[in-house]
Structure formats: structure tokens, C-alpha cells
């Protein structure tokens, strides 16, 4: 019973790489910044103002503190009140075995409740990515839930597969950068329409379950589940590019929120669990 209570709805693979409940801190989740040399202002402009994660007890003006799904605190990603603004939380590891990994999370998103309106199309999108590298390629599986565009509800999962454009940073020849979180290049996940539980006013927060499986051996999607929906990931591809100089065995996970209007978009994560299938001989 103890294990069930601690892990909530999660069903991890054989090895838990991390199980982060934000009641006990940010656990290594931090803000994302672009690459730079010598000066901050030579990073790609889209990276200059990605808002960092904070710990939230989910307090709203009308009912006070709601707390998280399984405790008091959640990791919160809050954009600026500007359409297109992004908030990103990232956690950086390396992997010990190139097999199946599984990311599970309980999440919720809302606009900042600064008006007494439903505001259900104010959050543009929320998303997640892996940033991975093996001996030959860097692979960046990107998925997002496109909630709305310009006030029009969408409600669809999307994937970004196109290789990014790289820019040289500084003069050393060692630093490059690419911006991969922009609104360009997203394609619909086939069968990816899904209506999530927004609820009836901007201050009511419902938590969602998410599970993503990815194979580090074949560098391909294996499964995606959100709440009661299981999506076919066999037809989608992650973003791929040649291996880079200093990223061997990289295993990064990031979540983000994007404002769809000039109102803050808020993505909350109650907890995040990353697990892996590691054969006994490989873990010894």
C-alpha cells in the first residue's frame, strides 16, 4: 500500500530513474537558456526570456489554496502575459542503457485568472520533449498539446520532426544553437484530437495523467497515453540531427507552456516519474 500511495497513478518500468514529487523541492528541474559565448546577448533571441520553474501551492483569488494532486506543491511554469511567451522546465541526466524509457506525469494547465471569464482558449499549448544523444545522432522527440490558436479551440496532440536550423554562436567555432520550441514545424499526431478537462471557470484545476514511452535503442516513439486515450505513435518520428561534440548519452526531459494570448499561461506538474527497462546484466 505504501508504494501505491507514493506513486499515485504511475506504473513505472523496472528501474526508476527519478520520481519527483514537488512537495519536496524542484529536484533538479531548472530553467532553459540558449547557448552563448562571451556575452549573453549573442544567444538566439528566442532563448533570451524562457521563464523558469517555481514551486506553487496552486493558490487562486477566489477559493484560495488548492494544493497539488498529491500534496501541497507543484512545479509551475508561468509565461509572461504576452502571446507566444514560453516557460520551460528542464532536467538533465545521462543514460546508462539504451533501452525503453518511460515518462509519466500528472499535469494541469490554466491561464492566469485575471478576468472573470472562462478563458479556455488563452493557453496556446503545453508540451514535453526528450533531448537525447547516442554515438551517431542527437534525437529530440517533441510533443505538444495544442490547446488553441488565436482564440480558436484546437485540442490536438502534435509532433515536431523536421530537422532544425543551426546557427553558429560566438567566434570559437565550438558553440552552435538551434531554437526548437517555436510555433513552426508542428504536425498533427494522426488521431491526436483529444478534449481535456478544462472545467467551468479559470480557477478550477483538474489534474491529467500522461505517459510517454520512447526506445533509446531504436530512437523511436513506443507509446503515448493521456488520461484514457492511447495514441498510435508508430507513424511519427522524432527530430534527428548528427551527433554533437559534448552530448554523449544525454537524457534530458523538458516541459513547457506557451501563452496563446496576452495572459500568463500556467502549466503545473504535480509529479514526474522517469523509469527505464534495464536488463540485470546492464545495471550491474
Amino acid at each position: 500500500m505504501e508504494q501505491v500511495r507514493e506513486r499515485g497513478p504511475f506504473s513505472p518500468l523496472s528501474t526508476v530513474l527519478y520520481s519527483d514529487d514537488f512537495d519536496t523541492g524542484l529536484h533538479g528541474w531548472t530553467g532553459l537558456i540558449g547557448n552563448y559565448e562571451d556575452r549573453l546577448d549573442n544567444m538566439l533571441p528566442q532563448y533570451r526570456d524562457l521563464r523558469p520553474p517555481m514551486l506553487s501551492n496552486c493558490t487562486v483569488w477566489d477559493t484560495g489554496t488548492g494544493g497539488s494532486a498529491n500534496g501541497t506543491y507543484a512545479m509551475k511554469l508561468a509565461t509572461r502575459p504576452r502571446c507566444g511567451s514560453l516557460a520551460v522546465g528542464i532536467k538533465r541526466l545521462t543514460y546508462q542503457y539504451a533501452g525503453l524509457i518511460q515518462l509519466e506525469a500528472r499535469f494541469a494547465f490554466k491561464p492566469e485568472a485575471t478576468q472573470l471569464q472562462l478563458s479556455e482558449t488563452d493557453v496556446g499549448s503545453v508540451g514535453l520533449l526528450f533531448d537525447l544523444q547516442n554515438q551517431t545522432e542527437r534525437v529530440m522527440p517533441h510533443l505538444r498539446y495544442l490547446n488553441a490558436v488565436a482564440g480558436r479551440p484546437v485540442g490536438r496532440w502534435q509532433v515536431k520532426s523536421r530537422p532544425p536550423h543551426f546557427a553558429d554562436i560566438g567566434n570559437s567555432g565550438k558553440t552552435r544553437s538551434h531554437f526548437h520550441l517555436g510555433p513552426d514545424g508542428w504536425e498533427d499526431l494522426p488521431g491526436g484530437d483529444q478534449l481535456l478537462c478544462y472545467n467551468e471557470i479559470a480557477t478550477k484545476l483538474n489534474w491529467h495523467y500522461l505517459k510517454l514511452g520512447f526506445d533509446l535503442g531504436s530512437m523511436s516513439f513506443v507509446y503515448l497515453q493521456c488520461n484514457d486515450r492511447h495514441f498510435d505513435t508508430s507513424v511519427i518520428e522524432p527530430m534527428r540531427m548528427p551527433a554533437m561534440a559534448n552530448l554523449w548519452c544525454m537524457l534530458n526531459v523538458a516541459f513547457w507552456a506557451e501563452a496563446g494570448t496576452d495572459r500568463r499561461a500556467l502549466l503545473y506538474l504535480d509529479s514526474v516519474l522517469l523509469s527505464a527497462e534495464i536488463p540485470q546484466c546492464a545495471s550491474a
Partner: protein
Amino acid sequence: MRQCLTAAVERDVVWEGEFATEPWEAAWASEAIFFVRLLSLESAPAGAGPLLEARVQISPDGTLWCDEGSTATLEAGQSLVAIRARHFGGWLRLCGAVAPGARLRVIAYLNLKE
């Protein structure tokens, strides 16, 4: 061991006129220090006096704000100023004004401790 966190609430931005940092949730913390680091003086102020006057604000919900009482100034020749606050409830931000005519390129940090 107590939790402690430093957030770069503004990074490499230019402040002129009035400013306010983004709302930051701090319910888990009992003490806070805002730091403002001057990266460069983009434009000098028109007159004498401090380059920047800042004050801590608190909020019940992250949308409505009032002064907490802690204030500080960044004087000419200084590159770093700190403002301490305690007993602030759930939300914090830093607001204030830059001296008329001045433009300051800054990083603002919020350090929180349990």
C-alpha cells in the same frame, strides 16, 4: 537540511522608468533576498541621486500587489544591491523605478530559503 533556491527572475533586460518583476510563488519559504546586479549602464541618469529605487511587494493571489515595506537603492558606482524580506505569505515581486533618463541592463535574482 533546509531548501534554498535562487531564481533568475530577470536576465539581461534593460530597465527604464518603472519596473516590476514577474510574480513569484514563495509560500514554502520563510526568508527572501532580491538581488539586482547591474550589468551595464546603457544611459546615464539626467541628474544626481540613486540609479534605481526598488521595493518588495506581496500579494494574496499573484495578481493584486501591495508594498511589503522593504526597500533599497542602487547608488552610482554600485553594481549589486540586495533587499531582504520575511513573513511575506505566498507571493513576491520586486518593483520600483529607474532614475529619469537612465537605462540599466540588469539581472534580478530572488533567493528563497525555507
